[in-house]
């Protein structure tokens, strides 16, 4: 029982990061119908920038802020310079371009920083508090929950309570109609990419200290788990991505804890297949057919 409680808290903490990363994928998918396969590599690139600043200044938080800002810049540049010019006639084009971006980013990171693991420090202790002999949560876990909770709440407010959020949603659902109503649809797309990349960077900064450290490929597995989370939740649903993230986090934690860490990646793929067979639109997705 003690072990179950520990694994549950550990799973929720990891799941919160997957939730944030999946949310970033959903943001771009909803706005552009593109799965941003480069998101993991983009997050690593911004984490390198953040940790470089931390190392130079001695301030973790300054580096943290730089990583998120770098996400905004990288997201903006990716949309404005690359994705905007991709031919949208086949969905495969965007996938290929995104995978190409992954290779470029990882290659450049390897050239600048080398291909060995570098330490990624955590701002808070990762030692778990024990209550009645059961290890529950560390300070860092609490920080992860607070950061992801704040981001989810801020995005929810942005999309449901502000004019900009309304413009972004309208641009995603009906670009032509939105333009006729004076909405700068191109600008909204860029804003969507910038926000998504910033959320991805934040998720990277939250997950890297719990992994082996900084490495150009450090987010590859995280991307697979988060992509699964987004698909399980239904790619169109922001709520679904958060729930999907927590489900994947818990599943990984239980499987690693009871069956061994080597089985965990297989469990994620099994979950993906089961959900796609049972509910192809994901747990929170709406049916694919839409009355016009």
């Amino acid at each position, binding site marked *: 029982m003690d072990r179950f409680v520990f694994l549950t808290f550990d799973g929720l903490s990891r799941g919160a990061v997957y939730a944030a990363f999946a949310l970033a994928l959903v943001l771009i998918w909803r706005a552009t119908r593109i799965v941003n396969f480069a998101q993991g590599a983009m997050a690593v690139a911004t984490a390198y920038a953040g940790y470089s600043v931390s190392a130079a200044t001695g301030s973790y938080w300054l580096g943290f802020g730089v990583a998120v800002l770098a996400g905004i810049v990288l997201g903006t540049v990716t949309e404005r310079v690359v994705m905007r010019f991709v031919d949208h006639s086949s969905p495969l084009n965007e996938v290929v371009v995104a995978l190409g971006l992954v290779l470029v980013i990882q290659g450049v990171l390897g050239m600048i920083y080398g291909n060995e693991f570098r330490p990624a420090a955590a701002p808070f202790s990762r030692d778990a508090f024990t209550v009645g002999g059961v290890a529950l949560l560390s300070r860092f876990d609490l920080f992860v929950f607070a950061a992801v909770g704040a981001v989810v709440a801020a995005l929810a407010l942005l999309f449901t309570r502000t004019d900009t959020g309304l413009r972004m949603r309208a641009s995603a659902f009906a670009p032509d109609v939105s333009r006729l*109503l004076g909405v700068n649809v191109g600008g909204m797309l860029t804003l969507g990419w910038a926000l998504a990349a910033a959320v991805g960077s934040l998720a990277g900064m939250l997950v890297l200290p719990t992994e082996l450290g900084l490495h150009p490929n450090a987010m590859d597995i995280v991307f697979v788990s988060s992509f699964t989370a987004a698909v399980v939740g239904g790619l169109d649903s922001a709520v679904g991505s958060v729930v999907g993230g927590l489900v994947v986090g818990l599943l990984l934690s239980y499987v690693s804890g009871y069956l061994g860490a080597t089985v965990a990646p297989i469990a994620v793929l099994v979950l993906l297949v089961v959900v796609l067979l049972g509910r192809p639109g994901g747990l929170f997705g709406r049916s694919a057919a839409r009355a016009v």
Partner: protein
Amino acid sequence: MSAPLLRAEGLTAGYGAAPVLHDVDLDVVAGSITAVLGANGAGKTTLLRTLSGLLPATGGRVALDGRDLRGVRVEEMVRRGVAHVPEGRGVVTELTVDENLRLGGLWRRDRADARRALGEVYELFEPLARRRTFHGHQLSGGERQMLALGRALVGRPRLLLLDEPSLGLAPRVTAQIMRLLRTLRDRSGLTVLLVEQNVRGALAIADEAVVLSLGRVVTRGTSIDEDLRHAYLGF
């Protein structure tokens, strides 16, 4: 006769290499309703899409109040006073009635008047006021048309480009919408360019009619000649 609010000269446009509109001249007088009539494929929708800039013209010019509209971006047109309600009504079905209507006034600097205009639309379309929190996909066809029209009115346009408002609607609802357009013209001097398949309904309220066939204007005037009616409109 007053100067035209909208003037198109030699307008040519189309999709890919094949032009759909050939050399179309059109004058729309301020405060009038002009009906654009014609069979399927005559180029009516293409004409509206070209006028609002959704489809770039390949030749000719369009002017609003004498000011050239060439090179004006689609997003800019609403600021010039042009509202285009596209075919199929263009309601964003994923958004609520209230969000759709707010969307119509987001571009406006005068936030207070945008709110006032929204209130007026709710007064004008009582069924919408009762369904503020409903999503677009939960509305009937008639309600969606009201919503699309209301959303355009929130922007207080000078020129309304209306594409087939009667499409798929019951005759009673169509008649209501036609009456409303006449009322808007009479009360607020709204100028309407109305594309319709429902010829009788459109002619009943139009001050002028233009008949398109295969992308060319074949006749225009305040009454449509009987021979042309037979030839192009089928009654």
